[in-house]
């Protein structure tokens, strides 16, 4: 039986109006699928359009043209509140700078998406505690984010992302604010989640070493997808794809 892709982008374009007048296109006909259980890295240099691509995948922004199907459902033209519901049900976010609520303890932070889903309190508590145990922070549930290390904060963010039992984890430069040791720990944890629990992960990064933790890389350069395939042996393959796109 043919599997439904979790993410299906068809000829996605994104154009931003400029304040000085005119407009700038940042994505050109981006087309790719992400199947359930994949660990995909979207890679590209700064300004390549990978963050814009992530915002569209994360239902934080809408494409100017093209079709975006999330788990078989066309969400291209949904209204902001409908997109909020989609984010809550289907997507778990892990951000570069954690984005935890600083004045709430970590248990409250992990429970937050479940509150917006309208789950009863006892269910929220048990689910959040389960996730904190999964990330090894069950003894810190009353701590404030400011009392934790960077790596611990990111693990809280992962617990929050997993709490809603999403179809997809979307990680935007998840190791960007961490030292290399902590960063490796987080990436290993992602790998474990993907391998052992079969969670689909899409990770945005500009570093090849980080992208190499994934099973597949989509390379974006100047808004165009220049490479989409398994992780190459070295970065030069990706750089060559950039040069080829540049010549075109």
């Amino acid at each position, binding site marked *: 039986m043919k599997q439904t892709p979790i993410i299906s982008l068809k000829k996605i374009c994104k154009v931003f109006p400029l304040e000085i007048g005119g407009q700038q296109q940042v994505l050109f006909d981006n087309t790719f699928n992400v199947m359930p259980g994949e660990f995909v890295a979207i890679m590209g240099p700064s300004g390549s359009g990978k963050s814009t691509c992530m*915002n569209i995948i*994360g239902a*934080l*922004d809408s494409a100017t043209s093209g079709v975006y199907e999330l788990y078989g459902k066309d969400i291209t033209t949904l209204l*902001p*509140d409908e997109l*909020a*519901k989609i*984010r*809550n*049900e289907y997507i778990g*976010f892990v*951000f570069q700078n954690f*984005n*935890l*609520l600083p*004045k*709430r303890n970590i248990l409250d932070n992990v429970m*937050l*998406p479940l*509150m*917006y*889903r*309208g789950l009863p*309190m006892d269910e929220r508590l048990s689910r959040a505690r389960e996730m904190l145990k999964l990330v090894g922070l069950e003894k810190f549930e009353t701590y404030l984010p400011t009392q934790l290390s960077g790596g611990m904060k990111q693990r809280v963010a992962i617990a*929050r992302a997993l709490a*809603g039992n999403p179809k997809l984890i979307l990680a935007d430069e998840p190791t960007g604010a961490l030292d290399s040791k902590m960063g490796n720990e987080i990436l290993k944890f992602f790998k474990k989640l993907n391998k052992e629990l079969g969670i689909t992960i899409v990770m945005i990064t500009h570093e090849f070493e980080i992208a190499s933790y994934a099973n597949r890389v989509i390379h974006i350069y100047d808004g165009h997808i220049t490479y989409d395939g398994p992780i190459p042996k070295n970065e030069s393959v990706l750089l060559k794809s950039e040069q080829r796109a540049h010549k075109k």
Partner: protein
Amino acid sequence: MTFYDIMHESWLSISGNKMRSFLTVLGIVIGIMAVVVMVAVGETVQQSITDQFSSLGTNTIMIRAGAAQSAGVRTGNRMTLTMDDVKYISQLPDVAAATPMENSGAQVVYGNKNWSTSMVGVYPGYATVQNIEMEYGTFLDMSAIRNAATYAVIGPETAEELGMPKNPVGEIIRVRNTPLTVIGVTKAKGSSGMSSQDDMIIVPITTLKKRINGSRFPNSVNMIALKLYQDADNNIATEQITTLLRQRHKLKDGDADDFQITDMKQVMETMETVTGYLTLLLIAIAAVSLLVGSIGIMNMMLVSVAERTREIGIRKAIGAQESTIITQFLSESILISFIGSMFGLILGVGLSQGVGRFILHYNVPFSIWPVVVSISVAVVVGLVSGVMPAIKAAKLNPIDSLRYE
């Protein structure tokens, strides 16, 4: 989100900025407290006036001598009323009782104590006109008037100030060297805030004029007070009195009245209207402070939205809908306003009742409507102050909000 979630989230946000929240709440506390106190002041003044008039009764009419006009100019008090006028007015069909009244200050002496009070010379009808009841002894009768008897009826406060026995009937007091025998003590009416009817000496008008004041015009009268029967019409009675007095004073058509008639019902209605406007004015002034308080809430909420832009972005990213964000910010501003209103209400009621009872010794009326108004104002002020910041928060773009530093 459940109601508990909304309140919990609001409380956490408010308590997260204690000093700022406290100062914002304080603005509403002062506003509501001012409104409650001003309402209490207005109602107290109104109550006081109503008490004063109800002790007299609205079917009371006062006639003052003088006030004749000459070429459009009031010529002031003239002794135009006489004891005979009182007699004829008493015979009018609507008049239940009438009495002349002559007021005077009095330094009264009893034993080695003395007390400065007011004295009034009257007819027996005064008891009916002023609704006077006796605690001890009797009131003045007509024979005391005819004989200019040296009798006095005193108020309970006067008796107390002079250190008289509990039942002072038969005791002698002296006013300007005139010995007066106390024949009765009136029942306490209670202080009505402005003047006390419990501290006065009532004597026959003839005694006051002839024996105490040594008046050269013993037949003239300064003022006549009269009480109408309950079913009498004040306007008709006033017309009858005017006609009678004009005939008796031989005034021609076109001549101005040489007396002034004051209908207490009209006076009370006028006073009530005036105090009603006064109360409204006081409330309007107090409402300005409430308005300032509500601007304080709006300001705080706008600052809060700016400060929490990133938080709003996070909430939206993980699934908060626009309506949820609006509800959260509105509930925060309503909660602030509600807390302020409740404290303002408690302080306002406490202050007005406390000052009234323990300092002014007056029962300040307590009405339920400041409570209803406070709660309504809390919700309205909270909603109005919070709606703009809440919409602003809800409309924030989650991508921009997440990037906000």
